[in-house]
């Protein structure tokens, strides 16, 4: 019998709230059909309230009703500072995506209600991953995250590219989920428990003092399958093949969401699984993470260099960013157990995820805003002369691109700074990884700046239609821009995000 007390309710409030909000959106649509603006108000307002609720409930350091980590359902779900940070990030992603969506969907005759509802369900899945401390819950939450994602990718169902992308995404996604599940099963088989803390204890007993060779082969196999499954979800090379097609085909606001939402959630999964459950065998998986990081960022950037379709370019760029985030994880893995560097690596992963969410969503939102008029392609030439046609929009795009490049003092710079610093703190091979990271950042500057070249240094095409922005898009762009600037430039905000990442990392260790 599970006892339900006030703390249990408080701990479950964030994911439950978002799920209820998704239902509310559906109900509102049934009651007042076709009222898009009302739906946006409900969705965005609800999320804003829930963000405030999460901040108040906590447990953030210093504030919050929950004093510390709150376990519920016999330890299957936990509300700790990691959950809070990821909840806030995911809800901010959902809020921005709901703002960007309607202006793009409406001219194409696509409904807003289902879009918002599915998005909110997906986010619920992500938030459950963030708090999952049980392998079963972890898998269920993962499926709740990705299933609406498949639907969203194929949302423009009369568009061939959208359908093609969705099918690829679905097939590879299900495939990787199955691989992941098989890994979970093997892990369960050897440890006899699905509770992550107990798995961790069991694994560290199995490892004992003899090191990895003492692990049973099947458990190693399970570890390999889990790594592969997770690598698919974050789109790490060589498990990235679904990304460009899914990103190019999806309606642009969906692409924006896919490039950040599932990625942040998948990193939450990695943190819960690899750090929490399999931390004691980290010496075993770290070499793979180091190689994954190096290959992912390098290949992502190199292929992005030659893309002429902006959505594909940003897709490959998001692969590269996965690589950068993995550097943080590699720093955690390579650092001695219990050292400051270990925590620093985790902080880098979290900080990067937060900063990346704002700037990447912003960049996709500009693409979506340009494509408000159906028929506008996502070729890079669409950006020609944008500096003259829509100076403000071009300036925002430049801001997001500079942040993605890692130019100080924007959010993206701090993110790169954080992973490089974490890698350097470990030293050794990780120093080389840090150098590779900055060389990649320099290479990435080429294709980011190529967009800037089109915007500012080329003339607009003959008869290019005027660019008009919807009110919701404006608000969303403003929020994304504020996030990108504030995290980088306004010290209290930077410090707050660092402090949150710190306490989240401490919660994991």
């Amino acid at each position, binding site marked *: 019998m599970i006892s339900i007390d006030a703390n249990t309710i408080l701990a479950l409030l964030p994911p439950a709230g978002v799920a209820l909000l998704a239902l509310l959106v559906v109900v509102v649509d049934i009651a007042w059909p076709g009222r898009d603006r009302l739906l946006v108000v409900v969705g965005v307002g609800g999320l804003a309230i829930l963000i405030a609720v999460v901040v108040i409930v906590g447990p953030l350091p210093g504030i919050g009703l929950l004093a510390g980590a709150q376990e519920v359902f016999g330890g299957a779900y936990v509300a700790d500072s990691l959950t809070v940070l990821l909840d806030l990030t995911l809800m901010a992603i959902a809020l921005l995506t709901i703002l960007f969506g309607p202006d793009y969907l409406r001219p194409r005759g696509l409904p807003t209600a289902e879009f918002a509802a599915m998005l909110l369900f997906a986010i619920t899945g992500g938030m459950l991953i963030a708090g999952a401390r049980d392998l079963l819950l972890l898998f269920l939450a993962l499926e709740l995250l990705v299933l609406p994602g498949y639907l969203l990718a194929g949302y423009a169902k009369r568009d061939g590219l959208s359908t093609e992308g969705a099918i690829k995404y679905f097939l590879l996604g299900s495939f990787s989920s199955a691989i992941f599940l098989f890994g979970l099963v093997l892990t369960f088989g050897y440890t006899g428990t699905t509770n992550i803390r107990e798995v961790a204890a069991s694994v560290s007993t199995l490892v004992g003092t003899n090191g990895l060779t003492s692990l049973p082969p099947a458990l190693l196999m399970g570890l390999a399958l889990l790594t592969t499954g997770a690598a698919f979800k974050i789109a790490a090379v060589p498990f990235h093949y679904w990304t460009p097609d899914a990103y190019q085909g999806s309606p642009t606001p969906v692409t924006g969401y896919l490039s950040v939402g599932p990625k942040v959630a998948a990193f939450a999964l990695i943190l819960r699984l690899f750090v929490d459950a399999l931390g004691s065998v980290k010496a075993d998986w770290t070499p793979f993470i180091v190689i994954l990081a190096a290959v992912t960022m390098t290949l992502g950037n190199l292929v992005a260099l030659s893309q002429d379709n902006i959505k594909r370019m940003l897709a490959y760029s998001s692969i590269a960013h996965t690589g950068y985030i993995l550097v943080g994880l590699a720093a955690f893995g390579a650092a001695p157990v219990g050292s400051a560097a270990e925590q620093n690596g985790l902080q880098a992963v979290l900080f990067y995820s937060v900063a990346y969410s704002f700037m990447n969503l912003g960049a996709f939102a500009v693409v979506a805003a340009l494509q408000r008029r159906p028929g506008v392609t996502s070729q890079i030439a669409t950006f020609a002369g944008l500096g003259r046609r829509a100076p403000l929009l071009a300036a925002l795009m430049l801001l997001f691109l500079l942040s993605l490049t890692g130019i100080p003092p924007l959010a993206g710079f701090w993110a790169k700074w954080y992973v490089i610093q974490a890698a*350097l703190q470990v030293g050794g091979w990780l120093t080389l990884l840090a*150098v590779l990271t900055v060389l990649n950042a320099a290479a990435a500057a080429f294709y980011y700046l190529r967009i*800037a070249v089109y915007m500012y240094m080329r003339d607009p095409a003959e008869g290019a239609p005027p660019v008009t922005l919807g009110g919701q898009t404006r608000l969303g762009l403003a929020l994304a821009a504020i996030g990108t600037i504030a995290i980088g430039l306004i010290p209290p905000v930077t410090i707050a995000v660092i*402090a949150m990442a710190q306490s989240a990392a401490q919660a994991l260790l």
Partner: protein
Amino acid sequence: MTQLVSGLPILTLITFTPLVGAILIAFLPKERLNWIRWAALGTALVAWVFSLLLLTAFDPGQSGFQFGEVADWVPTFGIQYKLGVDGISLALVVLTTTLTWISILASFAPIKERVKEYMIAFLILEVGMTGVFLAMDMFLFYIFWELVLIPMYLIIGIWGGANRIYATIKFVLYTLVGSLLMLVAILAMAYTYQANTGTWVGAFDYQKLVEFGFDPTLQFFAFAGFFLAFAIKVPMFPFHTWLPDAHVEAPTAGSVILAGVLLKLGGYGLIRFAVPLFPQAAHDWAPLIIVLSLIGIVYGAIVALVQPDLKKLVAYSSVSHMGFVTLGIFIFTEQGLHGALLQMIAHGILTGGLFLMVGVIYERTHDRTIAKMGGLAGVLPVYAAVFGFFVLGSLGLPGLAGFVGEFVTIVGAFDFYPWVAAVAALAMMLGAAYLLFMYQRVIFGDLSDFLKGIGHHLTDMTRTEVVTLAPLIVLAIGFGVFPGLLLQLWQGPVNDFLAHVVPGALALK
């Protein structure tokens, strides 16, 4: 004067006045070209007046940094907003503020398109340049360093010549590779400091780091990172290839700032950071750097000899002249360093002037090909005279600023390595050759057919053009006759620098 300045955060005022101006200009209507132009010039003049105030209040007799300002920025990592000024940075700050208003004034006529964006970019550029010279925190320094990049990228890319996109991307990528590796070095240094002292406090503080004394391995690699960033900026052979492209494509004022200030950032970085922070490594690398400097001096001069384009000729002469700067620094003698600093100031004044002169003729003919010119002395007497002044100054005529820098450097080198001095002196003769050969072809002889075709558009210098050049002429004569003014200003920091290195004790002999 001192009382007037002492209560003010004068360094912040100098640095951020242009930013305030840029923000104001952003709100001016873009059709009001004259408002925008005068607002920009006014802002630059205000910053200039602030810098002159600082000059009068500055006490050269006092050692260390003056007018320090410090505030915590990100205490978690010991990052501070910390500014300070000594004789070296003061001279370069005044050079920057002077050249900025001259450049803005010189842009009034040539820049007719997108004037608003141009002036904003220029003022932000000034913020970055001034900040680099005043920052006393490595992190802050890096931010200003990168801040310089973006406005210059836009200035070359938007308002540049036919091949501007190639040139500007090359400029950005070269600079970015160098600066990102420097970032790795900065972080490695901060981490080492933190690991040894157990605290982040001071890990980015230049004054603390200088006293720290890093181990030889770290010094070797960190110096390499810093050196690459600065060597690209100077630019040293063989990292110079971006410079001719950037100069040729940049608008006149862009070239003036590029040659006058941006190249000095590299020299300043070597003197302020690379050598004092890593004296042992600087010592080990010095032979290579001296050889590269000599190659740069001779190579730049030889290549300049055969350039068909006026701007390209001046660009290669910069490579040659800046070779004296790196040579002077790395022979580690008092005269050498004085010479390097004098050369930096003189090159800023004289090459800035030469680019303005090329700009004047380009405004009238829209061509810079030397072969098409000829006989300008007859039609443009004032132009011929002023051009002659800068040519003579640049080739090192005694009595003008250019002579002192090169002469003192050579004297400094002679004490230790006569053969180095001999090679450098040979290059001075080459300098006379390419400049006089060019002057002769452009100014003397009969008026060329091409120029006859220009007809009545070929007018002598306007009053604005004279106003932009007059201060440079005054400074070139002033510092040529009284170099002691400058030597006295930076004697203190020069002594500090020499206290960090072993004078002339190189394994070259």
